[in-house]
């Protein structure tokens, strides 16, 4: 084990973390039924490495119940945003863990219900008093039973009791959008019970996860941290030679590169299959390769064992430019920030170059052995999202459409002509059960064209949409190259004589095609029909929302104090190249 991965490293690093003013901040609470020494230090170091300013709270030894049930506890005073509730099976089952069959079967069944209720109550109480997201570790299913192999014949044996508790907690809380489960049994499957648990450490200091594996467990916790603060990488940028296939196409030639039919070739196919699966759930793939375009694209299009084809890539840069220049171009063509990129390249010199020039890009330390590539990819915890919406899965097609749009724009030359030929359609729709998750996601993730940057969870959006005095609507944009899905949102508060725009945002990939203008103009037309005199909105500046800075001004709003105001009698700027459909 490398030194940077052992617990001693994290304990010492934790002492030297300086207060930083990172943009991403998070209040993390750790509540456990056993000693959590080392967890807190490791999580702070890992957050610091990811540029997350994290403050932590750890419950005193086995005091989680008091912390949760007392409304004025230090835990609630801490104002947690993310709470890990780490319970262990010995603690929950007590003596029954050792002597399950001393209790009659009926009582064992009742015990499951009781424990499920207790734990559910803890979760609901945390959420009620703090509105924190809760991550619950489920209980470790024992690998031992005093009944040995005949345990399977036993009704409600100890293993079944634990499995039932785990399943029921999930099913009874499946509508609780603020609860997620950290699958502890999966963690054990990955590393093995004999490794992650040490009787000696357990007897010495009530440690239920061995010292060596605490950093590995924290890696699993970091998946949730990353998802909550929105560190979800959007795009994987790939080199070609010795990264997507073995060998160098320019030297070895089409027939001699390794892809598929030999041990080395199989490792690249496996890697590509893992990439394809991420692409299908919405991670964009891009190519950044120094090569002759024609040689390389021929492999992508025609090689019989190639898994990823041209249409799986949202952006393709095969040329003789340096990797950094290409990364800048990929970022600008896809219209996403460099901090959304993960970069794979087998050449350590290229990796160092990118690391030095673009420190916001995650540069993967790819081992020289291609047999490890797929595993390196599947071990990464930066693609996590608490929920994958339908839009995420569609995203890859949208970026493919985007690539074709750029090609079309370059071909036409004149931007206005280009817009006219794009056949843009905007469908405005009231929020419903299908669109609410996406609307919430957009308020959480949109940074650039976002006038107020108010973040709303699903339950908040849903209560707004039930409110008669609010308008919550989304805009779905499509054009001749495909459907962009739901990319615009506004939330309006209706007063008698004026409407106040609470939220107005547009996903960055759509900016600049007039969609924002059509959204606003139809809203004003509607206000006019309902005899509303004024539309008001604020622009709240952030580090990232400069693209939206002049939106109200250019539309004809007048600044008055904190607000921008539009008199509905004024003429409205309305783009002619867009067809608007209203679906109520």
């Amino acid at each position, binding site marked *: *084990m490398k*030194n940077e991965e*052992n*617990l*001693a490293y994290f*304990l*010492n690093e934790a*002492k030297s973390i300086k207060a930083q003013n990172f943009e991403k901040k998070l209040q993390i609470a750790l509540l456990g039924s056993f000693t959590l*020494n*080392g967890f807190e230090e490791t999580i702070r170091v890992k957050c610091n490495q990811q540029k997350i300013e994290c403050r932590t709270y750890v419950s005193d030894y086995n005091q989680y119940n008091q912390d949760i049930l007392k409304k004025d506890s230090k835990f609630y005073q801490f104002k947690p945003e993310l709470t890990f509730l780490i319970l262990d099976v010995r603690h929950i089952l007590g003596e029954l863990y050792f002597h399950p069959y001393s209790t009659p079967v009926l009582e064992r069944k009742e015990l499951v219900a009781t424990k499920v209720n207790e734990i559910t109550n803890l979760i609901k109480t945390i959420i009620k008093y703090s509105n924190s997201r809760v991550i619950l570790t489920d209980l470790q299913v024992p690998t031992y039973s005093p009944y040995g192999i005949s345990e399977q014949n036993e009704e409600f044996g100890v293993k079944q009791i634990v499995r039932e508790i785990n399943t029921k907690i999930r099913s009874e809380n499946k509508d609780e959008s603020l609860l997620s489960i950290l699958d502890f049994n999966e963690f054990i499957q990955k590393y093995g019970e004999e490794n992650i648990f040490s009787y*000696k*450490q357990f*007897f*010495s*200091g009530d*440690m239920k996860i*061995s*010292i*060596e594996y605490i950093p590995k467990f924290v890696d699993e916790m970091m998946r949730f941290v990353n998802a909550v603060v929105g560190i979800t990488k959007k795009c994987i940028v790939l080199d070609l030679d010795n990264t997507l296939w073995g060998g160098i196409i320019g030297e070895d030639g089409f027939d001699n590169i390794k892809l598929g039919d030999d041990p080395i070739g199989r490792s690249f196919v496996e890697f590509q299959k893992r990439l394809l699966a991420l692409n299908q759930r919405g991670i964009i793939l891009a190519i950044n390769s120094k090569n002759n375009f024609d040689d390389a694209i021929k492999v992508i299009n025609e090689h019989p064992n190639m898994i990823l084809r041209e249409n799986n890539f949202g952006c393709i840069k095969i040329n003789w430019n340096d990797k950094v220049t290409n990364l800048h171009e990929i970022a600008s063509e896809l219209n996403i920030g460099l901090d959304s990129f993960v970069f794979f390249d087998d050449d350590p010199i290229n990796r160092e170059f990118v690391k030095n020039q673009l420190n916001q890009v995650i540069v993967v330390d790819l081992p020289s052995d291609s047999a490890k590539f797929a595993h390196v990819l599947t071990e990464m915890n930066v693609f996590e999202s608490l929920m994958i919406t339908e839009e995420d899965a569609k995203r890859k097609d949208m970026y493919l459409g985007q690539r074709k749009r750029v090609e079309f724009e370059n071909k036409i030359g004149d931007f206005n002509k280009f817009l006219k030929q794009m056949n843009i359609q905007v469908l405005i729709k009231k929020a419903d059960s299908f669109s609410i998750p996406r609307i919430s996601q957009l308020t959480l993730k949109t940074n650039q064209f976002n006038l107020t940057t108010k973040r709303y969870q699903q339950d908040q959006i849903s209560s707004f949409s039930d409110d008669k005095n609010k308008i919550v609507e989304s805009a779905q944009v499509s054009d001749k190259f495909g459907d962009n899905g739901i990319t615009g949102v506004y939330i309006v508060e209706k007063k008698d004589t004026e409407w106040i725009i609470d939220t107005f945002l547009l996903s960055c990939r759509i900016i600049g095609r007039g969609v924002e203008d059509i959204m606003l103009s139809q809203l004003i037309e509607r206000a006019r029909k309902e005899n509303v005199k004024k539309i008001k909105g604020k622009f709240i500046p952030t580090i990232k929302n400069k693209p939206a800075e002049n939106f109200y001004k250019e539309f004809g709003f007048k600044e008055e104090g904190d607000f921008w105001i539009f008199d509905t009698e004024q003429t409205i700027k309305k783009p002619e190249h867009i067809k608007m459909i209203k679906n109520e």
Partner: protein
Amino acid sequence: MSEKLYQIVSEVFNVELNKINDNTSPENLEEWDSFNFYVLLDQIENKFNIKFDLDETLEIKKIGDFKKLFEKYGINT
């Protein structure tokens, strides 16, 4: 072998190598606390590829005590 042992102690407790000797103990090294002692134990077991018995770990009061255990396990110091 002393060198390797001291190196590990210095890394785990994050103190300079020349501060470590056989008499180093919680009494004279403030960086030594009850939890990172377990971390030290874990590192020494891993790096020397041995597993101490629980009672043996309870007998360790100063760094020199590790050497006695090494002798017992046939590791030359």
